[in-house]
């Protein structure tokens, strides 16, 4: 599983580098948007999958569940970075201020920052910090921020937004239900 996480990370970083290399090329705006859209949905999908790992694997092999959750979470964070890199290279290349001043972009940026924070605290050395669980519960906040990101995004679909938000609510409710039963 570690190997999988490593490969996902490496591929993600390679994509970031590739995206950066395209920055000054004359690649079409529509292509940038298309790539941005795909990478964003990959990140959002991996985030949902990592959130689903615990409730879906409940009652099974806990270690195996944790491994999957971690690998998917790492993948989500790396994909979010890739997505950010592509957005910087394409749609918001000449409007960097908008990343912070526009609510939709700010929400996406904050979600990425959370995922990066969780990424760097996902390794053995950092797992010993005393507030690891409250910190990693921010994945749900990241999920909510992604929903906010999709809400007004120029190129997102309403169906995608509704699916993502519904799935997030179901997973959070499921997790709370399991917690209350304990």
């Amino acid at each position, binding site marked *: 599983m570690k190997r999988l996480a490593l490969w996902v990370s490496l591929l993600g970083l390679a994509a970031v580098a590739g995206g950066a290399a395209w920055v000054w090329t*004359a690649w*079409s*705006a*529509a*292509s940038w*948007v*298309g790539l941005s859209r795909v990478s964003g949905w990959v990140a959002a999908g991996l985030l949902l999958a990592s959130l689903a790992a615990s409730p879906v694997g409940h009652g099974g092999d806990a270690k195996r569940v944790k491994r999957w959750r971690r690998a998917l979470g790492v993948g989500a964070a790396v994909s979010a970075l890739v997505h950010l890199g592509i957005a910087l290279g394409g*749609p*918001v*290349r*000449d*409007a*960097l*201020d*908008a990343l912070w*001043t*526009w*609510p*939709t972009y*700010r*929400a996406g940026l*904050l979600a990425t920052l*959370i995922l990066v924070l969780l990424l760097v605290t996902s390794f053995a050395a950092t797992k010993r*910090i*005393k*507030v690891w*669980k*409250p*910190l990693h*519960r*921010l994945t749900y*906040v990241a999920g909510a*921020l992604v929903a*906010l990101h999709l*809400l*007004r*995004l*120029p*190129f997102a*679909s*309403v*169906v995608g*937004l509704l699916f993502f938000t519904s799935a997030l609510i179901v997973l959070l409710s499921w997790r709370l239900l399991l917690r209350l039963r304990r």
Partner: protein
Amino acid sequence: MRVPRQGWVLGLAAPLWALFGGPDLASALFAYLAALVVVGLVARFRPRALELRLPPLGLGLVAVAVVGPALGAAVERAPTLAENEGLLGVAEHLGDRWAMERTPAIAPGVVFTDRPQRFFVHAPGASAVSVEGAGFDAPLDAEALGHGLFRVDHHPRRDGALTAAALTIRTGEATARRPVERVVPTAHPRRLRTNPSRTLAAAVSEETDTLLVVDAEGFVASHDTADRPIDLAFIEGPGANGIAVLSADQVAMMSARSGETQMAHPLAHGTAIAAGNDAPIVPSGSGTSLVMGVGGEDPGLLLLVESGTERLADLPEGPDEIVCTWIACVASLRRTASLVVLGRERVEVPLGRPAVAMAAVDGDTVLVAVTDYSPGEPHLGNHFVQDQLLTLDLRTATITERQPTAWRSPRQAAAGDVDRGLSPMAIDAHGETLAVAFAGSDEIEVFRSGAPVPAVVDLADTPLLAPQGVARLADGTLLVSSPLAGAIGLFVRGELRKLVQLEDVDARTSAQALRLRGEHSFYEATRSGVACQSCHLHADTDHVMRNIGGRRLAPTLTVRGVAGTAPYLRDGSYPRIADLTHLSTTLLGGWLRHEAGRGEALDAFVRALPRHPPKDPPLERVREGLDVFVRAGCPTCHAFPAFTSLASVPQGSLFPESDTLASDERLDVPSLLSVGTRGPFLADGRAPTLRSVFDEAGGRHGDTESLAEEDLDALVTFLESL
């Protein structure tokens, strides 16, 4: 009961955010992270400090005491937080987006029962599409344009008028019902024209295909006309009582009294008609001497003759209005904000703002109503409007006098208010008397030679609000037409004596009544003297660059065809049309009269405005253009079928070199439906024509740099057909 770590973090984060955070999610998140750091450090160095144990009740009380104030702060900040996080108007925005994305989708989502319209259906994968509606004689077959896009042309006169608020889209065996807004317009008599002896006056209602003729007694006749009558002129000559009615596709001579059509000639794109009055451009012995303005591909002035029409002059566009005297004919042009005086010579008179109304005072003078006069550089004041009457000397083709009309009366509520003489909409000059209809302040002002102040006929207490026509008959009876009332009123010595209705007012539906209230708000001026109408002439654009909000010059937007494209304004800052009232009540000082529910009414009016008919090039050319449109990546932002993604984009991504726009300034993605009738184009009006959009955008407005000239021509043709 032991307090969990999560409890400590939340218990610390909540007051931190309440005390130091701002009304946005980022500061809430940072408060949470700060609390995490503090709790983490305490857990590392003083772990026993977190070992607090409380009974459940005590724990609950502590939680309420700590989190309660933070929740209070959250509730207090909620409106600002919602605004900061872009949550205002989300329901409307998502509703409009859903309507566009739920294929098969149709746009625009408004169906009129009185006029031809063009719809676009996005049905990916479908090979054939037809549209059915209650009241239609048969399903309307759509033309396939390619890329899942279909085009449907509907004419209620030909196909039957819709009777329900839904359309059914059939794609092969599948059907999908889509809700639409059904608009049944009310009668709208506008310009009033008199016969030469001033014993009769008449007006047409484009919406109900009606010609109404009145005399000093109040009523002569109401006649049905051809489709969408636009303008009329009485035919000259002793004892003549014929009327020429210019309609959407013909000009017809009708008897004023019987309504009998004596002659009709097909004529497309007519915009205005006037009696020639022996003007030099009218050849002697031409018969009717009726001068008509036409738009379309070959705009100009035409003369109506027995065999049809003769061309009198070329113009850059179809004129809004024509006035003729024996010295010259004057045509008012909107796009160039000018008058063209066609006498012995042709002279163009720039105004800076397009003429709203004109009238000949005598043979050598024409009065022109405008919202400002700035023939050189535009006035740069924020929302600058100065209603005035210009005197045009036809002999010299120059503006010789300017008379501002706005003034303040004892009704003034705040210093600087103006509440009279706002938005001059119609002028009538007869002998020594001049009558002007003001839609902004609901009044007629009658100026008599030698009188120091005008006599005011206040219409606020009558149904004749927002008047758009005025005429004086020979016996002194004053006639006033009001589209809102659907009526012409007869005034004798300032008193309303009779109201001639074109339709049964009691039969109006609540939706029609709401739209009419909104129409009144559109024309009514604010206390600053500015009305929606001041810039958006009859809900359209005046094609002028203006200082909007004290920031920069921007082209006036059209208000037509914006239904279902939330958010609104060029920066997408207004989530609902109803929110536009905010501009009037704050920056512009509020309307002259208080009225509840203006936002809802204005929304209903604007949503029900018909858009301009597009051009109709050959279908093959349209398909070629659509191919180019897709190849250039245009649907990424101008998505089918409304040709907008209903989103905003940072201007830096489109105009990185702009020094008048901030890089993170929002630019609303406008719908391209009827785009060919607008202009100038792009956010700062840098592109005077549709074709120049692709030269001025530096490759940022779609991937058009690699397109060949013929591709760009095809693209423009396609855009003009939308």
